[in-house]
Protein backbone atom coordinates (compact mmCIF):
# COMPACT_ATOMS: atom_id res chain seq x y z
CA UNK A 1 0.00 0.00 0.00
CA UNK A 2 1.23 3.51 -0.77
CA UNK A 3 2.45 5.36 2.31
CA UNK A 4 1.18 8.79 3.25
CA UNK A 5 3.48 11.80 3.08
CA UNK A 6 4.05 11.76 6.84
CA UNK A 7 4.83 8.02 6.72
CA UNK A 8 7.55 8.81 4.22
CA UNK A 9 9.42 11.17 6.56
CA UNK A 10 11.98 8.64 7.72
CA UNK A 11 12.39 6.66 4.57
CA UNK A 12 15.71 5.55 3.21
CA UNK A 13 16.55 6.55 -0.37
CA UNK A 14 15.82 3.03 -1.60
CA UNK A 15 12.39 3.04 0.07
CA UNK A 16 11.59 6.47 -1.33
CA UNK A 17 12.65 5.49 -4.85
CA UNK A 18 10.48 2.39 -4.66
CA UNK A 19 7.51 4.71 -4.11
CA UNK A 20 8.44 7.05 -6.96
CA UNK A 21 6.38 5.48 -9.79
CA UNK A 22 3.20 5.93 -7.75
CA UNK A 23 4.24 9.38 -6.53
CA UNK A 24 4.77 10.59 -10.09
CA UNK A 25 1.39 9.23 -11.13
CA UNK A 26 -0.33 10.97 -8.23
CA UNK A 27 0.58 14.31 -9.90
CA UNK A 28 1.16 15.79 -6.46
CA UNK A 29 3.85 18.35 -5.71
CA UNK A 30 6.84 16.16 -4.98
CA UNK A 31 8.89 19.09 -3.65
CA UNK A 32 6.72 18.92 -0.53
CA UNK A 33 7.91 15.38 0.21
CA UNK A 34 9.70 15.23 3.55
CA UNK A 35 12.40 12.93 2.23
CA UNK A 36 13.33 15.43 -0.48
CA UNK A 37 13.76 18.23 2.03
CA UNK A 38 16.77 16.46 3.46
CA UNK A 39 18.07 14.33 0.58
CA UNK A 40 19.89 16.14 -2.20
CA UNK A 41 20.46 12.91 -4.11
CA UNK A 42 16.78 11.99 -4.39
CA UNK A 43 15.90 15.64 -5.07
CA UNK A 44 18.27 15.62 -8.05
CA UNK A 45 16.79 12.34 -9.24
CA UNK A 46 13.24 13.68 -9.06
CA UNK A 47 14.22 16.87 -10.88
CA UNK A 48 15.91 14.85 -13.62
CA UNK A 49 12.98 12.47 -14.09
CA UNK A 50 10.54 15.38 -14.24
CA UNK A 51 12.80 17.10 -16.75
CA UNK A 52 13.00 13.99 -18.94
CA UNK A 53 9.21 13.63 -18.95
CA UNK A 54 8.87 17.30 -19.85
CA UNK A 55 11.49 17.14 -22.62
CA UNK A 56 9.82 14.06 -24.13
CA UNK A 57 7.31 16.44 -25.69
CA UNK A 58 10.14 17.50 -28.01
CA UNK A 59 9.84 14.11 -29.68
CA UNK A 60 6.38 14.51 -31.12
CA UNK A 61 6.23 13.06 -34.63
CA UNK A 62 7.75 15.16 -37.40
CA UNK A 63 8.51 12.64 -40.15
CA UNK A 64 6.19 11.29 -42.82
CA UNK A 65 6.72 7.99 -44.61
CA UNK A 66 7.83 8.27 -48.23
CA UNK A 67 5.07 8.48 -50.89
CA UNK A 68 5.98 4.96 -52.01
CA UNK A 69 4.40 3.55 -48.84
CA UNK A 70 0.94 4.66 -49.88
CA UNK A 71 1.54 3.34 -53.41
CA UNK A 72 2.27 -0.11 -51.96
CA UNK A 73 -0.74 0.02 -49.65
CA UNK A 74 -2.94 1.12 -52.52
CA UNK A 75 -1.68 -1.70 -54.74
CA UNK A 76 -2.22 -4.22 -51.94
CA UNK A 77 -5.78 -3.16 -51.15
CA UNK A 78 -6.72 -3.46 -54.81
CA UNK A 79 -6.16 -7.19 -54.32
CA UNK A 80 -8.10 -7.33 -51.05
CA UNK A 81 -11.82 -7.78 -50.62
CA UNK A 82 -13.43 -4.52 -49.56
CA UNK A 83 -13.83 -4.04 -45.78
CA UNK A 84 -17.51 -3.58 -46.38
CA UNK A 85 -17.67 -7.00 -48.00
CA UNK A 86 -17.53 -5.88 -51.63
CA UNK A 87 -15.45 -7.53 -54.33
CA UNK A 88 -12.61 -5.03 -54.66
CA UNK A 89 -10.93 -2.15 -52.84
CA UNK A 90 -12.19 0.54 -55.17
CA UNK A 91 -15.65 -0.87 -55.65
CA UNK A 92 -18.43 1.30 -54.25
CA UNK A 93 -20.33 -0.31 -51.37
CA UNK A 94 -23.22 -2.47 -52.43
CA UNK A 95 -26.38 -1.34 -50.69
CA UNK A 96 -29.12 -3.88 -50.30
Amino acid at each position, binding site marked *: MTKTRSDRTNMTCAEF*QDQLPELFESHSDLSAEEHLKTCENCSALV*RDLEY*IAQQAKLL*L*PIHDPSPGV*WDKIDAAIQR*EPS*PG*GGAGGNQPPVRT
Partner: protein
Amino acid sequence: MSTGQTAPKPVQQHMRRNPPIAGEAEAIQAAQGGDARAFETLYALHKRRVYSLCLRMLGNVAEAEDLTQEAFLQLYRKIATFRGDSAFSTWLHRLAVNVVLMHLRKKGLPQVSLEETLEPSQEDGPRKDIGARDLMLSGSIDRVTLERAVENLPPGYRLVFVLHDVEGYEHNEIADMLACSIGNSKSQLHKARMKLRDLLRTGARKEPAV
Protein backbone atom coordinates in the same frame (compact mmCIF):
# COMPACT_ATOMS: atom_id res chain seq x y z
CA MET B 1 -28.37 33.54 -26.85
CA SER B 2 -29.37 31.60 -23.81
CA THR B 3 -32.20 29.11 -24.03
CA GLY B 4 -32.21 28.45 -20.31
CA GLN B 5 -31.27 24.85 -20.95
CA THR B 6 -27.92 23.31 -20.33
CA ALA B 7 -26.30 22.48 -23.63
CA PRO B 8 -24.87 18.98 -23.86
CA LYS B 9 -21.18 19.04 -23.00
CA PRO B 10 -18.78 17.97 -25.72
CA VAL B 11 -17.02 14.72 -25.04
CA GLN B 12 -13.73 15.56 -23.30
CA GLN B 13 -12.28 12.09 -23.45
CA HIS B 14 -9.16 11.72 -25.59
CA MET B 15 -9.04 15.50 -26.16
CA ARG B 16 -5.43 16.00 -25.10
CA ARG B 17 -3.82 14.08 -27.93
CA ASN B 18 -6.91 13.33 -30.01
CA PRO B 19 -8.64 16.58 -30.81
CA PRO B 20 -11.49 16.08 -33.28
CA ILE B 21 -10.17 15.94 -36.83
CA ALA B 22 -12.42 17.54 -39.42
CA GLY B 23 -13.79 14.93 -41.76
CA GLU B 24 -12.41 11.94 -39.86
CA ALA B 25 -15.74 10.53 -38.73
CA GLU B 26 -17.14 10.72 -42.25
CA ALA B 27 -14.00 9.15 -43.69
CA ILE B 28 -14.20 6.27 -41.20
CA GLN B 29 -17.80 5.59 -42.09
CA ALA B 30 -17.12 5.74 -45.81
CA ALA B 31 -14.03 3.55 -45.52
CA GLN B 32 -16.03 1.00 -43.53
CA GLY B 33 -18.33 0.87 -46.53
CA GLY B 34 -15.44 0.18 -48.87
CA ASP B 35 -14.65 3.68 -50.14
CA ALA B 36 -10.95 3.55 -51.05
CA ARG B 37 -10.65 7.34 -51.32
CA ALA B 38 -11.92 7.68 -47.76
CA PHE B 39 -9.33 5.13 -46.68
CA GLU B 40 -6.66 7.26 -48.34
CA THR B 41 -7.93 10.22 -46.32
CA LEU B 42 -7.51 8.20 -43.12
CA TYR B 43 -4.00 7.28 -44.20
CA ALA B 44 -3.16 10.94 -44.80
CA LEU B 45 -4.51 11.90 -41.37
CA HIS B 46 -2.69 9.22 -39.39
CA LYS B 47 0.38 8.15 -41.37
CA ARG B 48 2.76 10.44 -39.47
CA ARG B 49 1.98 9.12 -36.02
CA VAL B 50 1.93 5.49 -37.07
CA TYR B 51 5.18 5.86 -39.01
CA SER B 52 6.86 7.73 -36.16
CA LEU B 53 5.94 5.00 -33.70
CA CYS B 54 7.36 2.36 -36.07
CA LEU B 55 10.50 4.41 -36.70
CA ARG B 56 11.13 4.96 -32.99
CA MET B 57 10.65 1.30 -32.23
CA LEU B 58 12.80 -0.01 -35.09
CA GLY B 59 15.28 2.79 -35.73
CA ASN B 60 15.33 1.88 -39.40
CA VAL B 61 13.47 3.72 -42.17
CA ALA B 62 12.94 0.70 -44.45
CA GLU B 63 11.57 -1.49 -41.65
CA ALA B 64 9.47 1.37 -40.30
CA GLU B 65 7.92 1.90 -43.73
CA ASP B 66 7.22 -1.83 -44.11
CA LEU B 67 5.47 -1.91 -40.76
CA THR B 68 3.54 1.26 -41.53
CA GLN B 69 2.33 -0.46 -44.66
CA GLU B 70 1.41 -3.58 -42.68
CA ALA B 71 -0.41 -1.55 -40.02
CA PHE B 72 -2.55 0.23 -42.62
CA LEU B 73 -3.27 -3.01 -44.43
CA GLN B 74 -4.48 -4.47 -41.14
CA LEU B 75 -6.53 -1.32 -40.68
CA TYR B 76 -8.10 -1.85 -44.08
CA ARG B 77 -9.00 -5.42 -43.17
CA LYS B 78 -10.35 -4.55 -39.73
CA ILE B 79 -11.88 -1.13 -40.13
CA ALA B 80 -15.37 -2.56 -40.39
CA THR B 81 -14.98 -3.76 -36.78
CA PHE B 82 -14.27 -0.26 -35.42
CA ARG B 83 -17.23 0.67 -33.22
CA GLY B 84 -16.04 3.96 -31.76
CA ASP B 85 -15.62 2.68 -28.19
CA SER B 86 -12.28 4.50 -28.10
CA ALA B 87 -10.91 7.31 -30.24
CA PHE B 88 -10.06 6.10 -33.72
CA SER B 89 -6.42 7.12 -33.37
CA THR B 90 -6.14 5.11 -30.13
CA TRP B 91 -7.68 2.10 -31.84
CA LEU B 92 -5.32 2.49 -34.81
CA HIS B 93 -2.35 2.95 -32.50
CA ARG B 94 -3.22 -0.27 -30.68
CA LEU B 95 -3.25 -2.03 -34.00
CA ALA B 96 0.11 -0.50 -34.97
CA VAL B 97 1.63 -1.41 -31.60
CA ASN B 98 0.59 -5.02 -32.14
CA VAL B 99 2.21 -5.03 -35.58
CA VAL B 100 5.42 -3.64 -34.06
CA LEU B 101 5.43 -6.13 -31.17
CA MET B 102 4.81 -9.06 -33.48
CA HIS B 103 7.69 -7.89 -35.64
CA LEU B 104 10.02 -7.50 -32.67
CA ARG B 105 9.15 -10.94 -31.42
CA LYS B 106 9.65 -12.51 -34.83
CA LYS B 107 12.93 -10.69 -35.18
CA GLY B 108 14.63 -11.53 -31.96
CA LEU B 109 12.42 -13.06 -29.35
CA PRO B 110 10.30 -15.68 -31.09
CA GLN B 111 9.24 -17.73 -28.08
CA VAL B 112 8.73 -15.12 -25.41
CA SER B 113 5.53 -13.72 -24.01
CA LEU B 114 4.46 -10.10 -24.27
CA GLU B 115 5.40 -9.52 -20.63
CA GLU B 116 8.89 -10.77 -21.38
CA THR B 117 9.08 -8.59 -24.47
CA LEU B 118 8.27 -5.65 -22.24
CA GLU B 119 10.68 -6.56 -19.48
CA PRO B 120 14.32 -6.20 -20.47
CA SER B 121 17.06 -8.33 -19.03
CA GLN B 122 18.63 -7.28 -15.76
CA GLU B 123 21.70 -5.76 -17.38
CA ASP B 124 19.56 -3.57 -19.66
CA GLY B 125 17.52 -2.23 -16.76
CA PRO B 126 18.12 1.02 -14.91
CA ARG B 127 20.32 1.24 -11.88
CA LYS B 128 18.96 2.42 -8.58
CA ASP B 129 20.34 5.81 -7.76
CA ILE B 130 21.67 5.60 -4.26
CA GLY B 131 24.41 8.10 -3.65
CA ALA B 132 25.44 8.99 -7.22
CA ARG B 133 25.46 12.73 -6.86
CA ASP B 134 27.49 13.94 -9.78
CA LEU B 135 25.53 15.31 -12.70
CA MET B 136 22.21 17.03 -13.18
CA LEU B 137 20.43 16.94 -16.48
CA SER B 138 18.30 20.04 -16.22
CA GLY B 139 18.80 22.36 -19.17
CA SER B 140 21.19 20.02 -20.94
CA ILE B 141 18.98 17.92 -23.26
CA ASP B 142 18.16 18.82 -26.82
CA ARG B 143 15.93 16.88 -29.18
CA VAL B 144 18.76 15.02 -30.94
CA THR B 145 20.37 13.93 -27.68
CA LEU B 146 17.10 12.69 -26.28
CA GLU B 147 16.15 10.94 -29.53
CA ARG B 148 19.46 9.09 -29.48
CA ALA B 149 19.02 8.05 -25.86
CA VAL B 150 15.48 6.81 -26.55
CA GLU B 151 16.86 4.70 -29.41
CA ASN B 152 19.12 2.98 -26.89
CA LEU B 153 16.34 2.01 -24.51
CA PRO B 154 15.31 -1.65 -24.45
CA PRO B 155 12.22 -2.08 -26.69
CA GLY B 156 9.73 -2.58 -23.87
CA TYR B 157 10.84 0.52 -22.02
CA ARG B 158 10.97 2.49 -25.27
CA LEU B 159 7.44 1.57 -26.23
CA VAL B 160 5.89 2.59 -22.92
CA PHE B 161 7.96 5.79 -22.77
CA VAL B 162 6.94 6.80 -26.31
CA LEU B 163 3.28 5.98 -25.73
CA HIS B 164 3.05 7.78 -22.38
CA ASP B 165 5.55 10.63 -22.31
CA VAL B 166 5.73 11.44 -26.02
CA GLU B 167 2.28 10.56 -27.31
CA GLY B 168 0.36 11.26 -24.12
CA TYR B 169 -1.55 8.01 -23.66
CA GLU B 170 -2.77 7.17 -20.16
CA HIS B 171 -1.63 4.05 -18.36
CA ASN B 172 -5.01 2.37 -18.68
CA GLU B 173 -4.88 2.84 -22.46
CA ILE B 174 -1.31 1.56 -22.65
CA ALA B 175 -2.23 -1.44 -20.52
CA ASP B 176 -5.06 -2.12 -22.93
CA MET B 177 -2.81 -1.76 -25.99
CA LEU B 178 -0.08 -3.98 -24.59
CA ALA B 179 -2.32 -6.44 -22.77
CA CYS B 180 -0.47 -5.82 -19.52
CA SER B 181 -1.54 -4.45 -16.14
CA ILE B 182 -1.73 -0.73 -15.36
CA GLY B 183 0.85 -1.29 -12.62
CA ASN B 184 3.15 -2.89 -15.15
CA SER B 185 2.78 0.11 -17.45
CA LYS B 186 3.62 2.51 -14.59
CA SER B 187 6.57 0.45 -13.54
CA GLN B 188 7.92 0.20 -17.11
CA LEU B 189 7.60 3.95 -17.56
CA HIS B 190 9.51 4.65 -14.38
CA LYS B 191 12.25 2.22 -15.33
CA ALA B 192 12.38 3.78 -18.80
CA ARG B 193 12.90 7.27 -17.38
CA MET B 194 15.54 5.96 -14.96
CA LYS B 195 17.33 4.17 -17.78
CA LEU B 196 17.14 7.30 -19.94
CA ARG B 197 18.69 9.29 -17.13
CA ASP B 198 21.53 6.76 -16.98
CA LEU B 199 22.01 6.97 -20.74
CA LEU B 200 21.88 10.76 -20.82
CA ARG B 201 24.30 11.12 -17.94
CA THR B 202 26.70 8.62 -19.48
CA GLY B 203 26.45 10.44 -22.82
CA ALA B 204 27.01 13.76 -21.13
CA ARG B 205 30.16 12.40 -19.50
CA LYS B 206 31.46 11.07 -22.81
CA GLU B 207 30.56 14.15 -24.80
CA PRO B 208 30.81 17.17 -22.51
CA ALA B 209 29.08 20.30 -23.80
CA VAL B 210 31.51 22.72 -25.43
